[in-house]
C-alpha cells in the first residue's frame, strides 16, 4: 500500500485477518503480541517524518465570533504524548482542539502544529490533512450507510479505498452494521463510525473531543486501546475528556484548560500523592494563596501546581 505523504505508516498486518465480531470490541484489545513487529519498524519510519515538538503554541488567541475562546495560551506537546485536556465547560478545550486541527483561526500570538504555521492560511490548509479531529459533530451524512460514508471520506482524502474494509473490521463495524444508514445508528455507533473515518485517514495528530462521551464501558476501553495503538505507531494524541479517572490512566500528561489558557499538571497520580496542596479545579475554595508555584511558566511538563483555580463563572 502506498503511503500518502504525511501519514504515519501503519503496517498492513495490523488490519489484516482480524475477527470482526464483537469479541474484539468487548475489550479484547490486548493483542499487543501481534504488533510487536510493528512499532519498531513503523515508528522508525515515522520518526523521520514528524516534527518535534508536535504542537507549539505561544500566547495563542483564537476568536470565535469575537469571543476569545482561547486567550493567550501556551502549550508544547511532544511527539508520542497523550495529552489529556481537562477543564470546566466553556473553558476552550474544543476550540483548542480545533485550533490544532487548523479549523479555528489564530487571531493573535504564534503557533505551529506538525511543523505548519498556524498563522498562515497555507499552513493551516496543509495541517488539516495531517490532523484528525473527532468532535461533537459526527461529520457523517445521515442518508448514507456506514460503509458509504467511510468510503466517501476515504476518497475525499485521497486514501486508497482498500484500507477501508480492515478499518471497519477493527472498529467492529462490519457485517450487519456496514449497510445501515447512519441515521438509524445509536449515538455510540455513530461515534465509532466517525472514529473509523479518522482512523482511515491515519493522521499524525489525533484530536479527540470527549471520545468517551456516549460510549459504554466497553466502548471506552476500545477507544483507549485504539489510542495506545496509534501512539505506538508514532501518532500524538490530544484528548479532552471529563472522564478523569479513565483518561488519566492512558494520558502521559495532563493540562488544565481554564479561561482560555493552559495550566500544566504533572502525572495525576503523582500529583495526588506528592502534592498535598493539590485542589481539583472543581472544588477550589479559598485556596488562592495556599501554595507557592514552583517551576517556570513554561508549560513544558514541569510540575506546576495548579492551585485554587476558581470554578469558572459559566461563560460562552
Amino acid at each position, binding site marked *: 500500500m502506498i503511503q500518502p505523504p504525511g501519514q504515519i505508516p501503519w503496517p498492513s498486518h495490523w488490519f489484516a485477518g482480524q475477527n470482526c465480531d464483537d469479541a474484539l470490541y468487548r475489550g479484547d484489545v490486548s493483542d499487543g503480541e501481534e504488533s510487536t513487529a510493528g512499532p519498531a519498524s513503523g515508528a522508525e519510519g515515522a520518526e523521520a517524518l514528524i516534527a518535534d515538538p508536535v504542537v507549539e503554541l505561544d500566547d495563542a488567541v483564537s476568536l470565535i465570533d*469575537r469571543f476569545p475562546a482561547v486567550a493567550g495560551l501556551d502549550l508544547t506537546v511532544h511527539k508520542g504524548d497523550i495529552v489529556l485536556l481537562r477543564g470546566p465547560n466553556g473553558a476552550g478545550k474544543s476550540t483548542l482542539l480545533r485550533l490544532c486541527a487548523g479549523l479555528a483561526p489564530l487571531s493573535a500570538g504564534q503557533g505551529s502544529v506538525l511543523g505548519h504555521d498556524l498563522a498562515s492560511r497555507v499552513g493551516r490548509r496543509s495541517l488539516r490533512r495531517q490532523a484528525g479531529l473527532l468532535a461533537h459533530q459526527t461529520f457523517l451524512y445521515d442518508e448514507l450507510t456506514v460503509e458509504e460514508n467511510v468510503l466517501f471520506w476515504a476518497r475525499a482524502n485521497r486514501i486508497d479505498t482498500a484500507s477501508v474494509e480492515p478499518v471497519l473490521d477493527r472498529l467492529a463495524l462490519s457485517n450487519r452494521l456496514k449497510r445501515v444508514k447512519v441515521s438509524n445508528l445509536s449515538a455510540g455507533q455513530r461515534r465509532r463510525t466517525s472514529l473509523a473515518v479518522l482512523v482511515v485517514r491515519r493522521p499524525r495528530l489525533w484530536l479527540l473531543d470527549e471520545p468517551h462521551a456516549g460510549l459504554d464501558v466497553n466502548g471506552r476501553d476500545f477507544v483507549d486501546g485504539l489510542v495506545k495503538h496509534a501512539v505506538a505507531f508514532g501518532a500524538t494524541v490530544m484528548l479532552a475528556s471529563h472522564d478523569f479517572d479513565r483518561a488519566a490512566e492512558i494520558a502521559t500528561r495532563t493540562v488544565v484548560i481554564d479561561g482560555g489558557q493552559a495550566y500544566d499538571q504533572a502525572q495525576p497520580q503523582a500529583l495526588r500523592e506528592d502534592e498535598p496542596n493539590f485542589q481539583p479545579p472543581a472544588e477550589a475554595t479559598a485556596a488562592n494563596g495556599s501554595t507557592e508555584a514552583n517551576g517556570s511558566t513554561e508549560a513544558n511538563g514541569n510540575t506546576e501546581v495548579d*492551585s485554587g*483555580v476558581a470554578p469558572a463563572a459559566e461563560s460562552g
Partner: protein
Amino acid sequence: MTISDSSSGAGTEAQDSAPQNAAPDGASTGDSTPANTGSRGTRRLGVAALLATAALLLFGLVLSPPEASQAEAVRLFYLHLPSVAVAYLGFFITMVASIIYLRKGSLFWDLVAGSAAEIGVVFSAFMLISGSLWGRPTWGVYWVWDPRLTSTTVMVVMYIGYLAVRRLELPPEVRSRRAAVLGIVSFLNVIVVRYSVKWWRGVHQGETVGLDTQMDGLQLFSFFVGLVAFMLIFAWMLIHRFRISWLRHEIDEQALAQALAERRAETNATGLLGRKN
C-alpha cells in the same frame, strides 16, 4: 473651520472648489473617538456640494427652457440622470474595493465597499422614484418595462441582497470575504443583466426611455451641473458613511480587548503562576 469662500451660485463655482478630498483618515485613525465625523475636508466638500446643488436648482428649474414634447417634466431628468450615474459609480467602487480587499485583506477597503454600496442603493432608489414620477406625466403610468428601469430595479435588489449579506452573523473576516466576493460578482451581474434586458426589449419593440431628443446647449450644461452636484454629494456621503463604519469598528475592537481581559480573569490563580497577562 474656515468656510470656503462662497459666492453667488454660478455653476462654475462648484467645479473650482471640487475637492482634492482631504485625507479621510485624518480625523479618525489617530485620535481617540472624535465627536463627529466631520473634518475640514468634508466641510469644504459639503459646502461645495450645497453650492453645486443650488446651482443645479437654478439651472434646472429656472434657466433652462422646457422641452418640446415633455414640457416641464423634463426637469426631473436633471435629477434622474445624475443619480443613475452616481449609483453606477457607487457600485463600481464597491467592486473595485472588494477586489482590493480580497487581495490585501485590510479592513479599510471592506468598509469602503460597504459604504459605497449603501449609498449606491440610496441613489438607485432615488432614481427609481424620480423615474417613476417622471413617467406619470409623460406616459400616464408610474411604471414601464423599459430596459434601463428594469435592469436598474434588478440591480437594486441585488445590492440589497449584498447589504443583507454584510449583516449576516458570522465571524467578521468570513463575512467580509463573502461580501467582497458578492460585491464583485454583483457588478458583473449588473452588466450581464443590462445587456440581456436591452436585448430583450429590442425583441419586443418596446418603448424606451428616450433622451435622444435634441438638447440645446443650456440643457446640456444643466445636466453637467447636475452631474457634478451629485458627484459631490456622493463623495461627501461616502466619506461620512465610511467614517461611521470605521468608528463602529473601533468601538468593537475596544469591546474585544475588554472581553479578552474578562476571559482571562475567569481563572484567578494567575498571580501565583507568574504568567504574564
